[in-house]
């Protein structure tokens, strides 16, 4: 089975979709001549030309809005935002326009577009360039928000997102671009709105998305060495949120830790915990624990940044304390 990096999974999917459908085009800052800030679009300008791979000025509101307008006429733009932090400059177009146009006009026109953007801290980029604000978009009906954690999911979900008729926000992560994984030639179609059980287990459920889904798998591996059988659920889709899958897991394990790179208060984990509370109350042996970033603007200094961000160790700590509380160790 071919092994691809997360970056190569994205790049090859963009290429395949550009070949498959003339209506697909890429638009964003530095994606053409510069080949992408993170080289996701490497080689694509040369192969497809500047009509299909369109460089833009530094005008996030303008070019995200232009992509929405082009999508309204039936094109399928795939926007690259250099990082999710810069999506804040385009948030009016994303929230007030992309998310609203289908419903607000009574279903007369859809907005078939993808907005790709990496989130994530840990690169010493400081407070404005290290945020995990996918919640802002996961909050909004009319948007779809996906957050793959593996190269295979990145490929499958990007393909689905490009072929979907709604605006899909596609969350990538700086720490995942070089991660490698098996990507089958006959990759099954991914469904937006479906979580995945990425490791079966019986003692505790670990829930994560994007980088933290990968971290949760690492934590489960370490727990296995301690004789604990942890189940891992990768949310994959933040809107819609697949509550059924995570509640089904917790109904069997009786306890859960949800791990997220964003801030705890009002975060994705809060919604997950509330859903578990409502859907698995009678099965819970302990409160749902949340592992999330410290509530500070992320500092530059490595010692401070490392302390602020969740890690395998922080997931392990919360998991061990939860297991202890329910008497499983």
């Amino acid at each position: 089975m071919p092994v691809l990096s997360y970056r190569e999974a994205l790049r090859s999917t963009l290429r395949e979709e550009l070949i498959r459908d003339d209506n697909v085009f890429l638009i964003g800052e530095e994606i053409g001549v510069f080949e992408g800030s993170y080289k996701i679009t490497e080689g694509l300008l040369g192969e497809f030309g500047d009509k299909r791979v369109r460089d833009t000025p530094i005008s996030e509101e303008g070019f995200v809005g232009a992509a929405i307008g082009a999508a309204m006429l039936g094109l399928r733009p795939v926007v690259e935002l250099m990082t999710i932090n810069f999506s804040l400059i385009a948030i009016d177009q994303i929230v007030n326009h992309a998310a609203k146009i289908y419903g607000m006009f009574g279903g007369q026109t859809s907005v078939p577009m993808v907005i790709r953007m990496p989130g994530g801290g840990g690169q010493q980029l400081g407070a404005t360039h290290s945020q995990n604000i996918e919640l802002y978009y996961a909050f909004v009906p009319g948007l779809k928000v996906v957050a793959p954690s593996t190269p295979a999911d990145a490929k499958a979900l990007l393909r689905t997102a490009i072929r979907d008729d709604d605006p899909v926000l596609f969350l990538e992560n700086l720490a995942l671009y070089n991660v490698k994984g098996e990507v089958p030639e006959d990759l099954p179609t991914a469904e937006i709105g479906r979580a995945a059980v990425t490791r079966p287990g019986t003692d505790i459920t670990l829930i994560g998305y994007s980088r933290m889904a990968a971290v949760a798998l690492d934590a489960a591996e370490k727990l296995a060495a301690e004789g604990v059988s942890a189940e891992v659920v990768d949310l994959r889709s933040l809107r819609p949120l697949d509550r059924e899958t995570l509640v089904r897991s917790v109904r069997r394990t009786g306890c859960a830790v949800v791990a997220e790179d964003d801030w705890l208060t009002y975060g994705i984990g809060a919604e997950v915990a509330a859903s578990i509370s409502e859907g698995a109350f009678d099965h819970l042996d302990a409160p749902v624990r949340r592992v999330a970033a410290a509530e500070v603007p992320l500092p530059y200094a490595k010692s401070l940044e490392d302390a602020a961000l969740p890690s395998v160790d922080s997931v392990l700590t919360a998991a061990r304390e939860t297991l202890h509380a329910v008497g499983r160790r």
Partner: protein
Amino acid sequence: MATRTARRRNEATTIDHAPISSEDPDTLRQYLRQMALIRRFEERAAQGYTQARIGGYCHLNLGEEATVVGTMAALHPTDYLFTNYREHGYAIAKGIDPGRVMAELYGRTTGTSKGWGGSMHMFDTEARLLGGYGIVGGQLPLATGAALAVTYRGGDEVVLCQMGDGTTNIGAFHESLNLAVLWNLPIVFLVVNNDLGMGTTVDRSSAEPELFKRASAYRMHGERVDGADVLAVHAATARLVERARTESRPALLEAVSKRLKGHSVVDPARYRSADDVAAARDADPLVRFRAALAAARVFDEAELDTVVAEGRAAADDAVAFAAKSPHPDVATLFDHTYATPVASVARRLPADPIF
């Protein structure tokens, strides 16, 4: 300040249409009928609002009828239109049945947006009105993208993007003009300058109050027209639209007119001086056009009365249509969340449990 602006405005106004007597009488009749229709339609909308048949915000085109009718007459049926939230007249003049426009104000299923949009959010695929937008400046990047799609496909349609004077101060305006020139897009940006962004005058909000000049920062052609003169508006729009169509180049047209009433139905406009209100009345485009037609002896008074009455009757018919149209069924609440069905969507009403 106001005097200075008014003087500058007059100096810069283009008056470049042919004499009224050389125009096609049927066209003139159609303009007058549409202007009378829109005038009556907006008066009935205001009435419906005070009767609580219309909710939300309600911004009227009163005083802007010449701009509305003149610009829309310059478009091909296949050309695209994006507007702001003051768009009832544009929807009608772009070819949407007035009954459907009023039904949208009434929140009925027969409305332009099936009752989902209201006054600020009209849309019609067939008429190619691609939306009224309630966020100031929100429509500009969208319209720019629509023009990009036209060039992407090699089409010959033009996009007209309407906005108010206040919009020229928001970032999306500047980003969109820049993109439109960089990418050689067939789009005409129409700035309807009524000198008031709600209650704030252009002088108090724009460092360059001659708004058409702002295009020059992007090496875009910009010009100003008397927005109360339907023939001048039509001539200027037609010229810029055809230039966009044949040369794939954007332009900005500033149409200057007076708002006859407040910013919205509920605004008594106490911030306006008596002189300003009187000037607005004197500049009434409907009165002015009818007087010009009479003076040129294109139609006699009886004919003019008939045309105006036809327009007014069409507006009254629109109200009747809206009033007898059905309200949306609550069962349709989740019909328009996503175009592609997706798993795990929570279709719940406020008190429903999620499990």
